[in-house]
């Protein structure tokens, strides 16, 4: 079994070599990574005098914090300082958007694991040992630990949001069939293999250098400056690479940067702060768990005619990114399906847990899973094939059946079934052909029949099959973030360095950007290097998030390279007396060299072919600018926050997965047996990296819905009420190699992005995560078959993750 590679080497035999774009080049750090020679923040040689900080965690989920007894900690040899909120020179509240999160707890504690103080010591072990000696004085208060309980108490971190189109109530009243239900979907720990870390180094004249494992150096810079009472230009944040991010280092990394910087400022020495894995689990936010209530109306074919959906997002003790995460859950409540008369209510529930945060998909998966679950239920309720019901509900350029008068003036009922519930018209819909191609290639119908026959004769094991699509909106929903900058430097020897505002967390952004720049300048890829993300080079960069890294930064780098290319072309045009448009920069065999010689950069005019390196050298001597900035902002997007309508997304990425599973009806255990994926990345800049993103995202999505269970101790627990009990890889189980099926095929959709995006590509980081929902639906299919065989009536009642225990109860009850 090997992944299919969508593109192959282009036709050889011409003078020009394949461009750097469109080929499966190895990750720019692959050789270093396999040799252990790719440094992460903890690998940076420590400056003499470096101290280490460890957090002091609240043992109580909710309470009044009267004070901290730090005497025992301070008495431990090697301890240099213990910092509390009163030691913060700037604002003691983090410079987060909603300004609701204390840097260190003060007055109250709001979750088990909230950081109350920092111990600074000569070694990390001493710091951690001393942190356990700090004695807090806390009067416990009743905690709220579940979103439903918070909703009951109207306890929210942000106001509720409602989106309506058409007239859901009337539609439901007229619907031939209705179903109502409620279910829960759990959160997810990022489990980046490299835990959170920051290393703060005081520089001259009250300037600061922070090495941070972060997806958002600019925000770390902003937060550190705010906490230390400095201007932004005094703080420089650098990140060469992360050992995984997945959204977990979008804001959560900023806390570490602030804590390390505060400790460094307080002691006047460099301070490194690296969280122990268990502390990382206890302190940092996770994917938002969601609770759902719904009533859906549908006709005999399973086509939806009305939907009322309530989403409760379990936000934790502060807002963090819960607003945009919950918004994206609303935007993806449709997934691939037209919702004509719909009412969605979203509540951002405040609970005494970690403050949940960005995680690959950013609310999208929590939106998609609800409608996929509902459609599965509708199909089973009618005795129809779930795929047929899904197809009946797909967005399509078809007229509406019987439009009801719209209740909303700003969000009118559209004439065609191709407008989302937030008023965005699908201009790039490939859902039907994509699903049809996958269903055909994976023999969906035949396997469906084979499985039913097999199940009939199987006493214990029942198999299930599901094919689910994904449609994912690409752009930050906050329009202002959709901008990026880059610098391309061509040195006098013709080598190129590119720097941009994005960060490398393994996704291959630096590789793709280097490919784009190399293509633009007609160079072999090895002539272009990407340098570390650095707030001192490209300022005000957005987070590397929302799958947008290549779209934004790749385009900015392309524009920068294009400027340099234009300078060189104009220079050569002057030499050769031709138009600049007649000068081409291509990668190819040097003139007169053997055809097997390594490809180099060539500058070809109508009258001469020169080596790129020679042209650069001559251009420098003629005082031609050999470097440039590039700036990109995504076109077409707009979004009205008050009406929740507009075009928040530049385009959609599509995909579909067909997954076969088996469950053990005695124990509830399950296995994934086979997976086939067809996914749309437009024209791939690097098929190997894109397939890697698809496979990795799928497996992560599978883990979210199967083995990865977050368990918090109940509010009435004898000990540790509200504490996260699954706080280490011994108890929190991400997928292992053995969980991945041998049959795991990934193919790439063959068409480029119809929107003008870099290289015709599409974003890939998040969309395939939701392909993991096919595992969920396949499990529910298997459970339904087991129930039918046992003569049990009623819908499948299953919450996620579908642990063996939950599957067993769903089969039996």
């Amino acid at each position, binding site marked *: *079994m090997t992944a299919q590679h969508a593109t192959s080497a282009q036709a050889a035999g011409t003078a020009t070599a394949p461009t750097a774009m469109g080929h499966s080049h190895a990750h720019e750090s692959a050789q270093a990574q396999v040799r252990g*020679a790719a440094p992460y923040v903890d690998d940076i040689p420590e400056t003499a005098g470096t101290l280490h900080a460890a957090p002091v965690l609240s043992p109580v989920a909710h309470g009044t914090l009267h004070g901290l007894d730090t005497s025992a900690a301070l008495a431990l040899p090697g301890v240099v300082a213990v910092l509390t909120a009163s030691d913060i020179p700037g604002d003691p509240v983090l410079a987060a958007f909603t300004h609701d999160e204390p840097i260190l707890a003060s007055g109250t504690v709001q979750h088990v694991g909230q950081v109350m103080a920092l111990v600074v010591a000569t070694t990390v072990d001493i710091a951690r040992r001393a942190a*356990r000696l700090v004695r807090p004085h806390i009067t416990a208060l009743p905690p709220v630990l579940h979103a439903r309980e918070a909703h009951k108490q109207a306890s929210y971190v942000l106001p509720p949001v409602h989106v309506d189109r058409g007239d859901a109530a009337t539609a439901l009243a007229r619907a031939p069939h209705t179903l109502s239900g409620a279910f829960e979907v759990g959160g997810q720990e990022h489990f980046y293999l490299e835990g959170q870390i920051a290393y703060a180094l005081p520089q001259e004249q009250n300037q600061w250098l922070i090495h941070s494992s972060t997806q958002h150096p600019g925000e770390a810079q902003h937060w550190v400056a705010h906490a230390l009472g400095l201007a932004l230009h005094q703080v420089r944040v650098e990140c060469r690479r992360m050992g995984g991010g997945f959204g977990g280092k979008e804001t959560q990394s900023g806390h570490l940067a602030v804590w390390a910087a505060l400790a460094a400022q307080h002691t006047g020495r460099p301070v490194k702060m690296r969280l122990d894995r*268990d502390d990382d689990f206890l302190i940092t936010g996770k994917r938002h768990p969601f609770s759902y209530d719904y009533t859906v109306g549908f006709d005999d074919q399973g086509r939806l005619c009305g939907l009322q959906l309530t989403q409760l997002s379990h936000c934790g003790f502060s807002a963090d990114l819960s607003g945009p995460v919950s918004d994206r859950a609303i935007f993806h409540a449709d997934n691939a399906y037209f919702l004509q008369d719909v009412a969605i209510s979203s509540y951002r529930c405040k609970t005494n847990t970690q403050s949940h945060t960005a995680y690959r998909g950013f609310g999208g998966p929590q939106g998609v899973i609800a409608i996929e679950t509902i459609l599965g239920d509708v199909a089973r309720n009618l005795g129809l094939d779930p795929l047929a019901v899904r197809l009946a509900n797909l967005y399509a350029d078809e007229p509406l059946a019987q439009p009801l008068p719209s209740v909303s003036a700003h969000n009118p009922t559209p004439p065609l079934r191709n407008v989302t519930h937030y008023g965005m018209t699908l201009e790039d819909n490939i859902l039907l052909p994509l699903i049809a191609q996958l269903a055909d290639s994976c023999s969906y119908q035949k396997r469906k029949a084979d499985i039913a026959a097999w199940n009939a004769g*199987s006493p214990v094991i029942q198999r299930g099959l599901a094919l689910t699509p994904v449609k994912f909106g690409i752009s930050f929903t906050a329009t202002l973030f959709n901008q990026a900058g880059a610098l391309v430097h061509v040195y006098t020897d013709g080598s190129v360095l590119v720097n941009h505002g994005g960060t490398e967390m393994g996704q291959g952004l630096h590789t793709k950007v280097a490919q784009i720049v190399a293509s633009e300048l007609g160079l072999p890829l090895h002539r272009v290097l990407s340098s570390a993300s650095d707030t001192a080079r490209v300022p005000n960069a957005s987070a590397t998030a929302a799958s947008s890294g290549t779209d934004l930064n790749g385009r900015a780098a392309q524009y920068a390279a294009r400027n340099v290319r234009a300078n060189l072309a104009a220079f050569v045009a002057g030499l050769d007396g031709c138009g600049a448009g007649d000068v081409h920069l291509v990668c190819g065999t040097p003139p007169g060299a053997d055809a097997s010689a390594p490809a180099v950069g060539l500058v070809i005019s109508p009258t001469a072919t020169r080596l790129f390196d020679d042209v650069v050298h001559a251009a420098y001597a003629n005082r031609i600018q050999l470097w440039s900035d590039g700036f990109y902002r995504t076109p077409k997007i707009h979004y009205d926050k008050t009406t929740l309508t507009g075009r928040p997304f530049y385009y959609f990425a599509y995909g579909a997965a067909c997954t*076969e599973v088996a469950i053990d009806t005695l124990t*509830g255990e399950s296995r994934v047996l086979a997976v086939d994926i067809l996914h749309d990345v437009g024209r791939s800049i690097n098929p190997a990296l894109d397939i890697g993103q698809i496979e990795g995202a799928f497996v992560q999505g599978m883990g979210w819905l199967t083995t990865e269970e977050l368990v918090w101790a109940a509010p009435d627990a004898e000990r540790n009420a509200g504490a996260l009990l699954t706080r280490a890889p011994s108890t929190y189980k991400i*997928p292992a190699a053995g969980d991945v099926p041998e049959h795991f095929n990934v193919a790439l959709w063959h068409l480029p992005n119809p929107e003008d995006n870099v290289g015709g590509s599409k974003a890939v980081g998040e969309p395939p995560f939701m392909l993991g929902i096919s595992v969920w639906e396949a499990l529910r299919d298997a459970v339904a078959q087991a129930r039918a065989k046992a003569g049990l009536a009623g819908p499948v009642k299953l919450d996620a993750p579908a642990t063996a*225990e939950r599957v067993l109860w769903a089969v039996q009850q």
Partner: protein
Amino acid sequence: MAPNTPHPHLPETRVLQFVRSGQVQRLGNVPPTRTLLALLRDDLGLTGTKEGCRSGDCGACTVVLGEADGQGGLRYRAVNSCIQLAHAAHGKALWTVEDLAEGNQPHPVQQALVQHHASQCGFCTPGFVLSLFALYQTRLGQSAHTGEPATPVTRDDALHALSGNLCRCTGYRPILDAAQTMLDVPTQTVDEAATVLKLEQISQINEASDDNFVDETRATGYLHPSTLPNLLHARARFPQAQLVAGCTDVGIWVTKLQHAPAQVLDLTRVEELRHIENVAPPHLSPVAPDTAAWLSIGAAVTLTHAFDALVATRPALATFASRFAGLPVRNAGTLGGNVANGSPIGDSMPLLLALGAHVRLMQWGSASKGADTTLNSSAPQAPPLQSRELPLDQFYTGYRQTVMQPAEVLTHILVPPPGPAITPHPDTHTLNGEWLRAYKISKRFEDDISAVCLALRLVLHNGVVAEASIGVGGVAATPVRALQTQAALLGQPWTQATATQAATVLQAEFAPISDMRASAAYRRAMLAALLQRAWAESTGVAHINLEHTSLTDLTQRSPSPLTGATA
């Protein structure tokens, strides 16, 4: 970073020596609880090895240890450096990710990973490289031994080798592909003979001093005796020393609970405890006068080797063995350590209870005087050693409590031989023979701690239960034997009705608790379900158990019906 100083009165440790990149490395003043990972990263600046979890669960810190195989070559094992104490590497060859490439030429394992795009963020990658390196070298070693080409690596081989390595980025497919092609790249070999020579040099230098701790003034912080008398002597002499036998749990006390004993007593070098032997049945055994040999598993035998020996005569245990932790933990941890540690969720004990295993406990001193005898400063000719053996079900007294005295060491686990495998009688079709099954229920199939573990051994005579031995984990404060259920089975015909009745008894016999792994209700349900599964499997029904890693046959064959099975 300055080395750890966990205890002000710490005795000095002897010079730590290991072979790395063909050279002997000598390190002084390494504290006894310094982990191997801390030594590599903080003391030696070898930052290629990563810290992912500090609990032996993710594999980012995997390194490879090599020891002489006694045949002029080396035996390789991947271990988690984060929970290995640095001194455990003493006298061994050590490879980290920095050691594999030859100059600019990456190792075949590294080449294969790059070719298959098998690293994304790269943080787990060094651990995968080392786990695969151990497999690679083992295959080359076998090839050199047999003169045949190296056996190709199958997907299952790769899964086995990588069972202790987590990757969050790739979804594993490219890593598994790389593993299956790494032997196709032109080979790169380790100079095993030269390494063995260096190991022997270290051994000669240290043999004299290693056991020279009897004089307390010369005792060190890390006691690493090489003989059983010296181990027991040290145990008696230094009862406060932390005894370790693989350190896969104590290592976590060190990293997570700041456990910092001033002195560590490591039994893994004790020659007498490093073997698996056939021995006469213990005198306490009720099965006498059976003359079949028992298996004696020394306390220094790794879980890998112990399970290999058990699976050799009981193939039904293969899957259960492969689901015990991950390979690096099985390569470092010992069966003796797992048993002596006494965790209620240790997976080996329910099995050993079902097998009717015994444990041997030993201590220094003559039986009449007890442990605190007067000792000479030199090892006596005939050391006074006490030994006792008892059935495992008499070993545990409470949560992590055992009958072991402070000076006692669990030295051996004694396992009875298997009975004849279950077969239907040629005429009556009734079943005769031993029926053994061991199951665990966990959230993840690989490398997870069981919510419930059930091991069941029945001996059937003409379809009637003549012996019943059931060990259970996860349902009580200790691993326990299901005595009431055993009684309910004895003398009954082995039928679905009996199994159902026994399942009812089994559910009533324990009062499991709810925790983050499972609810009490689910645990109770599993007791019955697993007994039902054992019955069904004994009737020859296939495809009723998902735990086997290769599932392709499930999608290709029809299930066989439960009805018509022989009872």
